[in-house]
């Protein structure tokens, strides 16, 4: 397919996904049966992907999908009746599909309810992000499985189990009461961020499924921010994802080699995304409800200052990581905090900050070893740095990052003795 054709196909697919999610949410909100809603729409979605790229996206994609789903469901209902099968779900679905045709132009947007159902505390944490990608965005299990590095069979099974659980345990399709949001919103935002992180781990963008996943996760973040405009953390998450996404083009050089943040060409950072992220952060800050995502986005904002001033605001970054460390006690935060401390107080202070961590628990964690190696090398402890690089290289999966670490290690030996 030529490039233009590819773009048309991608555009049609995007519209189909948006409409699909809206219809799944609309149908499932009433029956609590996500699988049945998906079944009703599966053929319609496939037909849209086959027809729209050639014939163009219809004016009202939702009505088009709804009409196609209705035909298929009625067919299935008839077939089930002939087979003497009682099919109460199909009957209910046929009824639901019949209702909104009168109000074709306006199907209520229930996707936020679907997001809250997918990230309900009664759903296993590891399946929340995949479940959102499938039900709200219509990704198939195989694409999700490849992004999450799980076999398609295992991913399908987890998704089926989660949908059964929503139906059987009575998980509601409802936006929680305001007083419950502090407890119930974080899992929704975490799952969106997890979907983004899976897509982000393919910076070359060669893996289409992953690149799309990151784009779609940002779209989910936009949806949450739009539907919950008074929730500072929803805005903070979107700002964080936009700041990260803005740097996608700068994370690899022309030959595909990994470029660390400190060496990225800021000219390649996406100004539009960064501007939007900054505006979101300002809006969030005015709400006086600080949280993890706003703080992490503010860290990225302090890096983005490089575009204007040529250097990141390391003092601000240390302060922000201090706050994040108190809030989360996460080793990932501690490692980044140590790197920031090394920028303001020197590598020895950075190494001392790393020592607060339980080294045994992090012995298999690549970022710990690469941060250690980096700080040891800067402090002149070349032998220890070499060993730490060995550990980091052994743990790294991404070949481009591995080559980068190997180059850093080789540079140690090339350096003249201090």
């Amino acid at each position, binding site marked *: 397919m030529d490039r233009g054709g590819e773009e048309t196909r991608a555009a049609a697919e995007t519209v189909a996904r948006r409409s699909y999610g809206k219809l799944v949410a609309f149908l499932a909100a009433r029956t609590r049966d996500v699988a049945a809603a998906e079944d009703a729409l599966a053929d319609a979605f496939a037909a849209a992907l086959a027809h729209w790229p050639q014939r163009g996206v219809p004016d009202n994609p939702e009505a088009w999908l709804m009409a196609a789903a209705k035909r298929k469901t009625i067919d299935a209902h008839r077939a089930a009746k002939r087979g003497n099968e009682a099919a109460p779900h199909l009957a209910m679905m046929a009824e639901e599909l019949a209702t909104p045709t009168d109000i074709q132009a306006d199907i209520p947007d229930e996707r936020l309810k679907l997001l809250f159902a997918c990230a*309900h505390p*009664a759903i296993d944490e590891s399946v929340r992000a995949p479940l959102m990608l499938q039900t709200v965005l219509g990704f198939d299990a195989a694409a999700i499985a490849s992004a999450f590095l799980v076999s398609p069979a295992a991913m399908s099974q987890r998704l089926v189990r989660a949908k059964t659980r929503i139906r*059987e*345990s*009575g*998980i*509601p399709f*409802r936006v*929680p009461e305001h007083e419950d949001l502090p407890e119930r919103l974080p899992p929704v935002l975490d799952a969106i961020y997890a979907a983004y992180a899976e897509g982000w781990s393919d910076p070359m963008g060669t893996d289409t499924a992953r690149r799309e996943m990151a784009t779609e996760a940002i779209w989910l973040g936009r949806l949450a921010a739009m539907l919950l405009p008074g929730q500072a953390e929803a805005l903070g998450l979107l700002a964080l994802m936009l700041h990260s996404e803005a740097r996608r083009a700068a994370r690899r050089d022309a030959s595909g080699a990994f470029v660390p943040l400190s060496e990225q060409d800021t000219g390649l950072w996406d100004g539009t995304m960064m501007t939007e992220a900054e505006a979101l952060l300002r809006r969030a800050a005015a709400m006086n409800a600080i949280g993890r995502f706003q703080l992490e986005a503010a860290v990225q904002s302090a890096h983005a200052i490089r575009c204007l001033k040529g250097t990141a605001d390391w003092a601000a970054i240390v302060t922000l990581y201090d706050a994040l460390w108190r809030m989360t006690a996460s080793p990932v935060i501690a490692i980044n905090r140590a790197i920031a401390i090394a920028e303001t107080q020197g590598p020895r202070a950075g190494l001392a900050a790393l020592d607060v961590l339980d080294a045994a628990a992090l012995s298999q964690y690549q970022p710990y070893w690469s941060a250690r190696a980096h700080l040891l090398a800067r402090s002149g402890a070349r032998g220890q740095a070499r060993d730490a690089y060995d550990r980091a290289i052994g743990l790294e999966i991404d070949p481009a990052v591995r080559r980068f670490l190997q180059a850093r290690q080789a540079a140690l030996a090339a350096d003249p003795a201090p």
Partner: protein
Amino acid sequence: MEYMLVLFSDPKPLFAMKPEEMEKMAGAYYAFTQALQNEKALVDSRRLKIAAEATTVSLDNGKSKVVNGPYIETKEELAGYYLIDVPDLDAALKWAARCPTAAHGHVEVRPIWPMPG
């Protein structure tokens, strides 16, 4: 939807309780039961005698085998239940959190298998 709040707790501290503590605990359960009744969410509720009083039966080659004690010996044992009728899991979870057992034991929330008709 109907749910059973299955209550698990350790009976040992009960034996050491002073009468006034016992009364306080009974009061907490009474208040919880009243709240369920007021909201028209209560279907049924019972407290069980301690698991040490249980007798367990199974059929072994068609012959009834009777064992002294509960099927499963645990520190926190099945102590009773509340059968409730509420709109969804979130409502059931809220009641479970208000149940006095949640403070000193565990409350398992199980959907009831719907019977046709």
